[in-house]
């Protein structure tokens, strides 16, 4: 009897998390470096050098991540964007040869997602890129959330991307208090801003 209870309790405790807690994609992945994912720096199939492209060659972020202004996702460049330059530029380099081969075989590159939000978070790049202050100036730069990617080699996660970090920023975007009225949050902080 005792053994039975022991076995059962072990079984239940091991499965308790899974029974109630397992929802696919419910935790922000993941890094070995830190608890909050900052500094997550996975190995990519091709070593894409952000520093060289963005700093040395001065290519703007949105040249490649062209959907950021229009869509929820910033978008990864399709291979034909890469090939636009690399038909001519630096064709002898090893990664570019590899890329050309994939392009010719109509085979997409399977990048490892660095900034991976859980599936129940609905983040839209568009509103953040387009966010303006009262004078019509952009409030956010890409770097505000992604860090100094132009100084990185392959991309790594700079911000923790946890809810507290998001809400902190949303709470700080405020209109100043006026005529006895309290200061206003223009960025919404209700649950259903991101969760639906």
């Amino acid at each position: 009897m005792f053994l039975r209870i022991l076995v059962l309790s072990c079984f239940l405790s091991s499965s308790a998390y899974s029974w109630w807690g397992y929802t696919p994609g419910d935790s922000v992945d993941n890094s070995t470096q830190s608890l909050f994912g900052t500094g997550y720096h996975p190995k990519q199939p091709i070593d894409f050098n952000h520093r060289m492209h963005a700093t040395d060659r001065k290519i703007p972020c949105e040249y490649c991540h062209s959907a950021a202004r229009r869509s929820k996702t910033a978008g990864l460049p399709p291979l034909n964007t890469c090939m636009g330059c690399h038909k001519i530029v630096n064709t002898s380099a090893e990664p570019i040869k590899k890329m050309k081969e994939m392009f010719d075989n109509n085979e997409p590159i399977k990048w490892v997602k660095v900034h991976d939000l859980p599936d129940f978070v609905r983040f839209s790049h568009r509103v953040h890129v387009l966010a303006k202050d009262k004078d019509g100036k952009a409030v956010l730069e890409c770097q505000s959330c992604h860090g100094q990617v132009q100084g990185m080699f392959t991309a790594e996660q700079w911000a923790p991307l946890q809810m507290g970090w998001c809400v902190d920023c949303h709470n700080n975007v405020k209109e100043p208090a006026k005529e006895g009225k309290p200061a206003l949050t223009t960025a919404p902080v209700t649950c259903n801003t991101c969760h639906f």
Partner: protein
Amino acid sequence: MTERLETNVNQVSQSSRSPHYMAAEEVLPEIAEGKDSSSGKKEGEILPVDRRDFMRLFSLSAVAGAASCVRRPAEKAIAYVKQPIDQVPGVATHYASTCGSCPAGCGISVKTREGRPVKLEGNSEHPLNQGGLCALGQAEIQGLYHPERLQSPQFRDGDKWGDVTWDEALAKVIAGVKNAKKVGIFTGGATGHRHEFFEEVLKRLGSSEKELYTWEANSLYSSVSEAYRLSFGHADLPRMELSEAAFIVGVGTDFQVSGLSPVSHSKGFSQGRSVRRGRRNKFVQFESNLTLTGSTADERHVIPAGNESVVALLLVKALYENPASKGTQKFRSDVAATLQAQEAVLLNAYETIGVGRDVFDGIAQELIEKPSIVMAGSGANFDQNATLLQLAAIMANTLSGAFGKTIFFDEGWAKSPVRNGDLVRFEEAGKLDVLFVIDSDPLFSVPQSWKLGDLFSKIPLIVSIQSFPVETDRVAHVVLPGNHNLESWGDEQSIAGFWSMRQPAVRPTKNSRQAEDILLWVLASVEKNLPYQDYRAYLKKKWHAIYELIRPSIAYETFFKAVIRRGFTGKMSIRAANDVKDVQQHFRTLKAPSVGKFVLAAPLDHRLVEGRGAHLPILQEIGDALTSIAWDTWLAVNPHTAKKFGWQRNQLVSVTGPGGSVELAVYPLPGLHPDTVVIPRGNGHEDKRSTISYLNGVNPLTLVEKASDPLSGQPVTSVFPVEIKATGKWFRLAAMQKLVHDMEGRADIIKTMPMKEVLKKATHKRGLDDVPDLFPKLDEESKHRWGMSIDLDRCNGCGACMAACGIENNVPQAGREQILLGREMHWIRLDRYFRGDLNNPQVSVQPVMCQHCNHAPCEGVCPVYATTHDPEGLNAMTYNRCVGTRYCANACPYKVRRFNWWTHRWGEMGERLQDRNPRATNPDVTVRTKGVMEKCSFCLQRITDAKHNAKGQNREVRDGEVQTACQQTCPMNAIVFGNLKDPTSRVAQLRDDGRAYLMLGGAPEHDHFGLKTLPNVSYLAEVTLEEGTQEEHGHHG
């Protein structure tokens, strides 16, 4: 204060107890499911998971859990190799196309994300359906991604089936076709170039174009076009403009859900039913069974089944005898002769039907005075006099002068998708060497007594090309997977001169090919090529004629592209008007209706039609609105009849007809004629083509004997005498609205308002939001307060909203067993209420979704803040916070919260087939998993999208910019959504309307405010014309 309140409550409850009831058992307790019903329950009654299964699942998830404890695996981000120019990842692309679920040919807009269709919407510019789409159309997405679509061609050897490659399958087909003298094609209805193409193929193969056989289970196409051919010389359908009709008389019609063009007719009907714009049509219906269309009638007369044509003739008689009636002298004398010839039938008809002569005279008077229309017959309920009924309707409409006002046959008439008498021709065709069966299932949808199986078995080679496997495949030798509608090219010409284009919205998701392309390939292989590379090339060639007709000032290429982009084009066709021919000779075939203790009506189900929707779980799950039964077939009987014979709800009876017998459970449905019993079609698939429909319900066509309408040649499917015997067994029907006496007499759930009062009371004395309470004021800083208004005067319960909501919001299907446990997952449901006489009640259908209460009872009880209120009035549900206490569901007085007892899979839970296809889900809405509460979100993803769009353009969200999925698809325009803070918005004006009320909001005019939940959903009370009709006709119907 408390005292006053109590007096108020008492006053209200005494003065206005609700006259409504939810089920016949409330009036006749004898017919409620008996106490002994627990014995002899069928399998599937209890939870389909036994203990061992439970433990297995449990331990399985434990393993999965152990893995998940570590870390979620890194996700891959895969970019395009070559990104299509019009695609932005994360932004939906819409393609205009044409629905293929029925031959009505509604325009659709296919929303695709990253190249895959995720949702269908009616094309709002399309003049036919004006943005609306029925449940069947909405469910096409499930048909596209259906896991049981064939993955490869199949080849039959005896009883064994085997997968073969396309080359092997085609080699077999070619060998058969090469030596064939007579090749035939059996296909479904179509109005575009499809049939013309098939004829061309047949001619090229050395066969004749007469070997093309068309078949639609909706027999209305045949009976109406045949009647118009006999009367006017063209086998076409009339175009009906219901929006112009102030008075509509239906004789056994079901035009809103299974007529000639349900969505377009619904749109027209609802436009004519706009109380606010001061025009509200009046609808009088004669019918034997209760239909959804009949449930919207202002005056409904219950007649014995099979007497529809007699009723129509009585109407003709009343019209003819009215001195103000119209028509040429010759026509009138023809009518007189027809009536004279049928005098014997009409003599005692008033007694048989149970409707007095004065009623007909009154209706005739109104038909002549007002812009009116007589709609007769439904494809659903087809008897041997069906074409005569249509002939009588043509007479009535001519006498009332409806032609040219509400019915058009010479100006933009409608095309018939079928050729009449094809089934009889097919029987007599003689020996065919090869038969192609394309997108048609005759073995299931033609009554079994026609023995089509025997005919088919004589054909040496049958090639079946179907987008989804059907029962006819059983007799086929080669089965080829055809493209789904969303993967095909095509066109429809629903109205003469008006063309609707069909384009593929996705590459074939399975290993399938378009039927037309397969035929072209076969032709090329036997060296009888047609000069087209594929069907698109064929269409492009054929569309030159349309280009010539329209003569736009642009080049043909540009024109063709523009049509594909927009989805339709056209020019009104006009032809010379013909005189009505003398049709009295045909009335010689008028047959007296069958007499028996019970007469069977076997209507097409409004969701499953004849069975074409049976494999789509969402259609099975939304259920029938009048009975709320899902996943089953039921026998609907009049409650008094049930009492008389001692039948109770869920009692299993055997029904024996001339063709066979079936066993099914009884559902007492008010509003049926005492001698009429109804078994809907659509279910009863005994061939395991789809696990969804397999052995689900029964097929009433097995009961009927072989008979056909002598004029149109269509098989008769209804009005057969049947015997019914109790078996002593029970079968619990999965009725979703199962609680009896659940209204507690409350008068504030469903409300009706007499027309007179509506005219008096334009707006409320006090606004709906003016409720005295201690809650803090609503957020004043917020620009929006989202609200919805639902017009109960328009809703007919077609279920399109439920299907649209399910597809848009990734709502899973729970299956029959879970529904029996009360665990259906619908975010929007249809509640149906009856009022008045059990034999002929007034029916109200009420869509209920989360009411988004501003003082929400669910929010206060959540221990983890998973459900909260947002400043825009939304009751937000945060899935990832939810721990599944279900307190909120208990607190919700509207019972709209749904708990995920499972991580739901595809199909029903009992089958546990496979995970849901992530490609078939809407990527903008989180897929919920086990242990989470969910409910209507007011389509928050659409609100967010509209706000972001507006922000990108530096403007505010416009009124009408946000359309919820249910509103967008509603064929009756019953739902309006918008910003309540904007006093000019439609929804804000409707909330101030005199008919507006809040569900469970008490009676504000008596200072009684109900639960004071202050929902953002308001309802507009159903309008009744009762007083008016009594005065006008002296009739209490």
